[in-house]
Each structure stands twice: as structure tokens, then as C-alpha cells.
């Protein structure tokens, strides 16, 4: 009984290491073929539409609500100290440093990451990837690299849009609903938010998140078992691993960027 459990634990651990190995090998292969895809911008632009543009609605709506909620919550706390004119600062800093990149990452993993995995997995199970190989078209170049690049480009752009819309949401609540003077709202932002310290650090986070989520998404699709069950598991793994990676990396990056 004990031996069985140990064996199963060992097998599981070996499986995990084998997956990590395959994932790393896959990433190296993808990065190796990436320059070739720069000569085929049409393929990347097409994927930018599917991966980026189609994720825009959820990002804008979520950004608006997150900004509005942040403004409302900040007001409730700050008004007791007579510091309600700092709402914009509170909203902007939390959105730029944390919520913008993290929310965008999580939403991207759920919306575009799962779609990427499902699409590539389905191409694998319907032999489209094998078919391409036999037509002497490398699926790494034709399928994987454009999607990887499109995702990698999309996430920081979506993050920037999320941040802008969230601040706009904060503005709507603070100025239009709570009647804060809009000059105060914007001047606080201008005076206290640092472009490099706050905005760029958030963007660096989004670049890292984008890289990791897209890597997980395309790898899971490419590596999935070509059955409906395997495809379902791969899609779930993309969302779960992608989300956990975003949250874990966020802690590490925050510790590096803001602890000094």
C-alpha cells in the first residue's frame, strides 16, 4: 500500500518534470522560429485580431467597473480623514502598480489563453498540425509563432487600455457621482504618479505576464492529448496555471520593484 503510494508520487513527480522539460524545449523552439514570422506580418495581424481585439470588450468593461469600485471604496475610507481629494491617486496607483496588470493577465488567460489552447488542441486532434507537417509547412512557424507573438504584443497593450479605462471609471464615480472637483482629481494624478516608478513598472509586469500566459496557452494546446477529454483538461490547465502564474509572479515582481 505504502509502496504503491510512493510509486504513484514518484510517477507524478517525474511526469511534472517531463512536462516542464517539454515546455522549456517548446519555448526554445518557438523563440527560435520567431524571427521568421516577422517576415509574414499578415499571419501575426490576423492573430492580433483574434487574441487582442476580441479580448478588448471584456478588458474595457472590467476596467471600467474596477475603476469605479476602487473610487467608491477609496472615498469611503478617505472621507473620514478629509482626504477624499486623493481618490485619483489611490485609484491610479493601485490600478497601475497592481490591478491593471493582474486583472488583464487573469482576464486574458480566461478569455484568449483558453481559446488559444482549445484552437491549437483541436487542430492537433483533427490532424491539421500533422497535415501541415506532411505538406512541409512547419506548424511551429505557421501556427504557434504567430499566436505567441500576437499574445505577447496584446497583453501590454490591453493592460494600458485597462489602466486608462479604470482611471476613467474612477473619474466618473469621483467627479460625476461624488461631486469631487475635477481639477483636484487630475492635478493629484499629475503631481504624484511617476511615469517610470508606477506606470512603467506596471507595464513591465504586463510584459512578463503576457509572455508566461501565452507560453502556457500555446504549449498546453500543442502538448494536449488529442481527445475531447485531453482538450478539456488542457484548456482548464491553461486557465488555472496561467492565473496562478500571474498571481505568483506578481508577488515576486512587486517584491523586486517596490520593496526598496
Amino acid at each position, binding site marked *: 500500500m505504502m509502496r504503491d503510494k510512493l510509486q504513484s508520487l514518484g510517477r507524478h513527480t517525474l511526469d511534472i518534470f517531463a512536462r516542464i522539460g517539454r515546455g522549456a524545449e517548446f519555448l526554445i523552439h518557438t523563440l527560435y522560429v520567431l524571427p521568421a514570422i516577422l517576415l509574414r506580418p499578415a499571419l501575426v495581424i490576423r492573430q492580433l485580431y483574434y487574441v487582442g481585439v476580441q479580448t478588448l470588450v471584456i478588458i474595457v468593461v472590467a476596467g471600467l467597473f474596477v475603476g469605479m469600485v476602487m473610487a467608491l471604496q477609496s472615498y469611503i475610507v478617505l472621507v473620514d480623514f478629509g482626504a477624499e481629494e486623493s481618490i485619483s491617486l489611490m485609484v491610479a496607483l493601485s490600478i497601475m502598480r497592481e490591478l491593471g496588470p493582474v486583472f488583464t493577465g487573469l482576464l486574458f488567460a480566461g478569455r484568449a489563453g483558453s481559446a488559444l489552447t482549445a484552437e491549437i488542441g483541436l487542430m492537433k486532434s483533427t*490532424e*491539421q498540425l500533422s*497535415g501541415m507537417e*506532411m*505538406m512541409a509547412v512547419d506548424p511551429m512557424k505557421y501556427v504557434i509563432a504567430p499566436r505567441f507573438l500576437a499574445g505577447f504584443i496584446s497583453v501590454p497593450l490591453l493592460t494600458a487600455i485597462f489602466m486608462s479605462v479604470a482611471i476613467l471609471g474612477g473619474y466618473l464615480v469621483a467627479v460625476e457621482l461624488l461631486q469631487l472637483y475635477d481639477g483636484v482629481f487630475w492635478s493629484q494624478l499629475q503631481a504624484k504618479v511617476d511615469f517610470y516608478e508606477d506606470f512603467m513598472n506596471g507595464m513591465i509586469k504586463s510584459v512578463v505576464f503576457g509572455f508566461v500566459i501565452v507560453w502556457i496557452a500555446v504549449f498546453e494546446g500543442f502538448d494536449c492529448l488529442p481527445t475531447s477529454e485531453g482538450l478539456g483538461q488542457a484548456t482548464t490547465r491553461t486557465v488555472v496555471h496561467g492565473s496562478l502564474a500571474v498571481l505568483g509572479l506578481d508577488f515576486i515582481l512587486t517584491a523586486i520593484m517596490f520593496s526598496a
Partner: protein
Amino acid sequence: MLVEIRGLSFSRGNRAIFDNVDMDIPRGKVTAIMGPSGTGKTTLLKLIGGQLKPDAGTIRVDGQDVHRLGHNALYAFRRRMMGMLFQSGALLTDLNVYDNVAFPLREHTKLSESVIRHLVLLKLQAVGLRGARYLMPAELSGGMARRVALARAIALDPEMIMYDEPFTGQDPISMGVLVKLIHDMNHALGLTSVVVSHDVRETASISDYVYVISAGKVVEHGSPEKLHHSGSAWVKQFMDGLPDGPVPFHYPANGLIDDLMQSEQGK
């Protein structure tokens, strides 16, 4: 010979799919590879195409050991030599019929769109689907999808086409169309065809040579006539589709009476 297979061994996990198999596929002929489901017929095509690597042995196509080629050389070799028709058709689902057939031409040649259009229409005409060129793969029947895939496989005029279970799940008319197409393509274009199938009658009707494989070995090979008159009880059962014989009807089990007696114990 176009394809020479020597001492091929291949296994998945602990299960041996091929064990020291020798095979020759003659140039310009239709060679059938038959055998029960799960004997590794598709695996054999993937080994010939260089998508899988054998554990031992060599596969030479046109004198070239396909597993000694590097990535780029293998792709160039496939482009020149091989087309493959997958069981599902493997059409790209985001492209319509026309673009699917044009796909290898656009990827591998610098031909102008007007030349590509001529070529695509001619290839589609050959499979009888010129009128279906604007349909998406989801709108095609299984038989039509395979015909489009065939048009795509011959787009670059390869020397050899490998057909993976081309007749499976087809109605009699589609089956008849595919049988005719495979036969006519082979003779009109001077191709070498390898047909993997377990549809004995249809496959035998167009084959010049047949290999029957089972349990990792070549059980019998020869012309279709020779196989029909084979002395082997196993081959006879397979070729005539008999329900019982050396391959038993019953999966190995204990005696029925013993099993029934045990049923009260819930096993």
C-alpha cells in the same frame, strides 16, 4: 523500389508495434497495407513520412534514409516527394476549399495568384469539386473533405501519396468515387500510392501489391489474387471477413458457466 523498409522496429511504451519488419513499395504502383484496427498501419505511414522515428531499422524513400535528414532537409524532402491524405482530411478549418488547395502552393512557391488560381481549379476539377471551391470545410461531407484533401495533396505534384484509411465511414457512392480517384490519379500522374486500409474489397480492387500486417509482423504479402488464395487461415479470415477463426469471436475469458456462477458475488 521507391520505399525500402529494413528491420523496422517501433514500440510505444512497452507495446511493440513493429518487430523487425521488411517491406518494399514499388515505384508507380498502388501498394496496399492492410491489417486489423490497431496494428499500427497509420504509424507506419508516419514512420515513412519521418513524423516518427523507429527504434531500429531504416526506411529509405527514393534511396534517402528519411530519419537521417535534418529538420530543414526533411521538410524539403517531403515537399518534393510526399503527399499524405489523412483519415479526417485534415483540412485547415479556417480556410475555404480553394484556399486549402492553394495553401501548399502559396507556402512553397512564388507563383502569382493567377497561376495559383489555374492550378487550384485544375486540381479541384480532377476531384470533381471545382464548383465547391467557396465552401468551408465544415460544410463538406466526409467524402468531399477527403477529395479536397486529395486535391491539396497533389497540388505540389509529389512522387508518392500515402492514403490513411481513405474509405472508412464512407457511403457506397463516396467510396466508389474515392476508389476511382485513387486508381485514376495513380495512373494519370504516374504516382506511387500507398493505401492503408482495412476495407479489403475496395482496397484489393485497385492494388497491385498487398501487405497484410498483424501483431507487428508482415503476415502475408503478394498480389491481391495471391492473398485471396492464401493457405494461411488467418489471412483467409481477414480477407473474407469471417467472424470466427484464428482471431476468435470471443475475447479470452473464463468459461461461461464459471462466470455465471460467480455472478452472485457481484463480479
